[in-house]
């Protein structure tokens, strides 16, 4: 499929990534992320999802091929500017243990030298947006529950209002109820904010619920790229195997609705 260039936020062109020139973690991946869509990277543990995200904000450099962000190769981007326009929700959160909630959330505005009062205002705004009680502002990450930490991670990524968001299993390790709640909030938020989101998960349900399109990754290869409906009913062996593994074939497929 081809997209008009200005409709593309991120493009992978034949990207491979080798670890220290030996083990291949990604093999010849080509994919485009359209502006405003939520592209879900779905795949089992160790398939290369985090690696793919880190290539977008140039925490990793592709061994072969190139990644274009807003039409420019990540190799040519001023890496600091690139990263500041890409919000990043890190797997296992990655909050700064020595910063309280407010400082964690306000980090990117702070390094962008926003005035203090504007940072404060923005932090309050974001805490409300992600449903964090304002009393938590002075707490440290270790004093929060897992769900609260993940909300802080999301708020931090949104702080400087970046057009692109990378979310690495942002709702992992949560109880199903909290997870469902955060997923609903994400959908509502995304409707309002219209960011370009690359969302990593290994959970098929989450992928079907949140994704505009779903990219299935297996052992470092992009093996399928579908809308949620296409994905669910695909006859491709690897897609069907993933869907079956979630026990969807019995109930959902038969009923014919996701």
């Amino acid at each position, binding site marked *: 499929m081809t997209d008009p260039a200005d409709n593309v936020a991120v493009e992978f062109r034949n990207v491979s990534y080798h670890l220290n020139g030996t083990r291949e973690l990604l093999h010849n991946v080509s994919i485009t992320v359209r502006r405003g869509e939520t592209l879900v990277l779905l795949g089992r543990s160790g398939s290369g999802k985090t690696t793919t995200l880190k290539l977008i904000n140039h925490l990793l450099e592709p061994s072969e091929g190139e990644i274009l962000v807003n039409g420019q190769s990540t190799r040519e981007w001023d890496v600091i*500017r*690139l990263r*500041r326009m890409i919000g*990043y929700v890190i797997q*296992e959160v990655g909050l700064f243990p*020595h910063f309280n909630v407010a400082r964690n959330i306000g*980090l990117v505005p702070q390094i962008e030298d926003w005035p203090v009062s504007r940072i404060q205002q923005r932090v309050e705004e974001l805490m409300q947006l992600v449903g964090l009680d304002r009393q938590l502002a002075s707490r440290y990450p270790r004093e929060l529950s897992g769900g609260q930490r993940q909300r802080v991670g999301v708020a931090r990524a949104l702080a400087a209002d970046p057009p692109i968001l990378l979310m690495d299993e942002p709702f992992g390790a949560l109880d199903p109820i909290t997870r469902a709640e955060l997923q609903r909030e994400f959908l509502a938020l995304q409707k309002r904010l219209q960011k370009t989101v690359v969302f990593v998960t290994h959970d098929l349900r989450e992928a079907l619920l949140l994704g505009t399109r779903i990219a299935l990754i297996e052992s470092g290869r992009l093996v399928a790229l579908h809308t949620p409906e296409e994905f669910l009913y695909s006859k491709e062996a690897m897609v069907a195997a993933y869907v079956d593994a979630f026990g969807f074939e019995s109930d959902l497929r038969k009923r014919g609705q996701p």
Partner: protein
Amino acid sequence: MNVWQFMLHHHAEVAELTLQHLWLVAVSTALAVLIGIPLGILIARRPVLNKPILGSANIIQTIPSLALFGFLLPAPWIGERADRLAILALTLYALLPLIRNTYTGIKGVDPAVVEAGRGMGMTDSQLLWQVQLPLALSVIVAGVRVAAVISVGLATIAAAIGAGGLGEYIFRGLAMVNNQVILAGAIPAAGLAILADVSLGWLERRLSPR
């Protein structure tokens, strides 16, 4: 006359020597902090410099203290005054724990946290000042603590080159074969060492993350 009576009787001199001693330790430890921490940061960022810098600091540690005082004697300006000489020697000894702890402190910061900072778009110096150094601080203070405690002991030897301090009593007592006089130097020196250990140990715990 027991040692307490001796110290009471000479309290002015005891106080003066203790202050001198404290001065030698404080100035040399401060200098070592000013030199050692930047060197530790440097080798954490430039691995090629790691071996030469840590190696040199290591070698200095192995030089017997009296010999080091002797080696430094011909140095211009420094060699002119005994206290300068003593401070230089003590500074050199204190460098190793500071360089090493700064280095291990920075290297010990959770790589995931550093990567998180990078991912947020922090520059190298923002990472250093806002993430690496704050998280390494307790390890660095542990280095200061080791350096200060070693310095208190080594500074007694500075009296051999006439730099003053509590070593005066120890050397005088040795010459006079008088245990009371030796103890009048050794007891306050031990007190200073314990003070440095406890206060910096408290600071270290205060600053340690988690």
